[in-house]
């Protein structure tokens, strides 16, 4: 398959089942909502080293939020359901609670699995906190120096998909990065997905384990590292001098597949030779996104 002269390899991305929460943060204006969101999603690129993956899903207009103020929606994912509440309590407590003017709401109110995140954070109020039930949902009012911080008592948790991906094989670093930026720009507005890496792009894709350092969980993906073409079993066609990866996490497989298709199409431009995807032979992750199928709209 070719798109705009770019070869789409007949392979698939292998992704994992994760657990996700959607957090809605509102603030006095879009700037403060974004400040809280950036801190909340900081150092959350990969579960390998960050214990969770997170990103800003989208910006919310005032009329979309529970309190009528500008906001953002954040997705935060972990590998298991036990660690999700702990990550939320740590991060919301240190980043959103601390941020001026913010309030914090559950973005998955219809999901039956509930995590008592606000219930745990209420104890920061040292007994001065108070709750209100509004429209059947309980909120905690935590007194702070600025005034009050409001957070919903529980947050929904649902299964999600982490690790959807594709790799851009380009002629040089600049054109490959430009293609990746096009892909990110096309995917960012899509609901239900996040791109957890810096600017949505990964330059240091990894393989499982290590050849030399046996205790490493992940090491450089030498098969796709251009500087190692002559000393390793390279997977790179001739003329490829730079590779960038885009990782997509989403609330469901359909959202990830849609985002991958949109991103790949946007990335197929001059200077990109091929698009491929990362997998582990299909043995580790239950979600397989075959590039040809998703681009044909069949997956």
């Amino acid at each position, binding site marked *: 398959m070719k798109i705009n002269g770019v070869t789409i390899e007949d392979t698939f991305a292998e992704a994992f089942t994760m657990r996700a929460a959607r957090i809605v943060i509102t603030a006095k204006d879009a700037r403060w909502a974004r400040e809280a969101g950036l801190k909340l999603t900081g150092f959350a690129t990969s579960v390998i080293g960050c214990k969770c993956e997170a990103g800003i899903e989208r910006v919310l207009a005032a009329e979309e939020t*529970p*309190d*009528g*103020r500008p906001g953002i929606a954040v997705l935060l994912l972990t590998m298991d359901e036990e660690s999700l509440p702990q990550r939320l309590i740590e991060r919301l407590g240190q980043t959103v609670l601390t941020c001026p003017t913010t*309030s914090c709401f559950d973005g998955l109110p219809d999901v039956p699995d509930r995590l008592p995140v606000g219930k745990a954070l209420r104890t920061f109020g040292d007994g001065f906190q*108070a709750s*209100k*039930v*509004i*429209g059947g949902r309980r*909120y905690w*009012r935590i007194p702070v120096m600025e*005034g*009050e*911080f*409001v957070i919903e008592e529980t947050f929904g948790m649902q299964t999600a998909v982490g690790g959807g991906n594709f790799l851009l094989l380009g002629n040089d670093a600049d054109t490959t990065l430009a293609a990746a930026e096009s892909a990110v720009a096309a995917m960012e507005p899509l609901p239900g997905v996040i791109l957890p890496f810096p600017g949505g792009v990964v330059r240091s894709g990894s393989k499982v384990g290590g050849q030399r350092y046996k205790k490493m969980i992940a090491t450089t993906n030498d098969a796709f590292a251009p500087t190692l073409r002559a000393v390793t079993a390279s997977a790179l066609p001739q003329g490829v001098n730079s590779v960038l990866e885009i990782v997509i996490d989403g609330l469901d497989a359909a959202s990830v597949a849609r985002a991958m298709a949109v991103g790949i199409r946007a990335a197929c431009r001059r200077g990109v030779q091929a698009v491929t995807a990362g997998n582990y032979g299909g043995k580790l992750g239950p979600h397989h996104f075959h590039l040809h199928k998703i681009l044909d709209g069949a997956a």
Partner: protein
Amino acid sequence: MSDWVALTLRSPIERALDLSAVRADAFATLATRELEALPVRYGGDAAVLGDFFAVTGERAARVRVTGDLERAEGLGTGMTGGELVIEGNVGRDVGLELAGGSVDVHGDAGANAGGARPGAARGAVGGELVIRGSAGEEAGTALRRGLVVVMGDAGRGAGRGMIAGTVIVGGQAGPGSGRFLKRGSIVALGAIEPPETFRRACTYRPPHLRVQLRYLKRRYALPLTDSHIDGRYDRYSGDFAELGKGEILHWVGE
């Protein structure tokens, strides 16, 4: 089964009519004939609902009552769910000991709306009572949980002895409102005189009110303005004659 049960008053009521059997949750399982046979008391005498109301619909937890009900008492008593809409004024004890669902009065209400029985330690324990007009004395007395909204004036002693929950008064709150409040909130959008046993804390914009007032505006189409939703409120803590863990939030403008 129908979407709504409609009760239409046949003729004016001359004496006090106890309608505590009219509760939306109980109507959900009753056929029209069973509804007509529900016991009521008229001036202390036993009667049935069908003596006073034309009943249409059955087996629905959404109930609409129409007519001049100023002498009708106790509608929605102990209701645990469903939706009760009263088209017009209603007498005392509407939403007495309310536990769930919503009671929406499109008019004025008498005394003890959403309140407690005489001598009872607590009144309503849940649900939402919305009075679009004014309320008599002691609306939300001994409220334990839930919400009482009076868009007009509230008489003497609104929220008296509240244990928790919220009473919102759109107009003037009568003397003694909030007295003996243990916990809970009285939100006064109009004039209020906090009892001497309250202490002023600060002026701020309560973030939860943005959620609460927007919810009420959306759910009940109440005439709440952006200046109420985003406005500044004086916070008074009290009642220090009790636990002192309650509050009066008095709107002071944009």
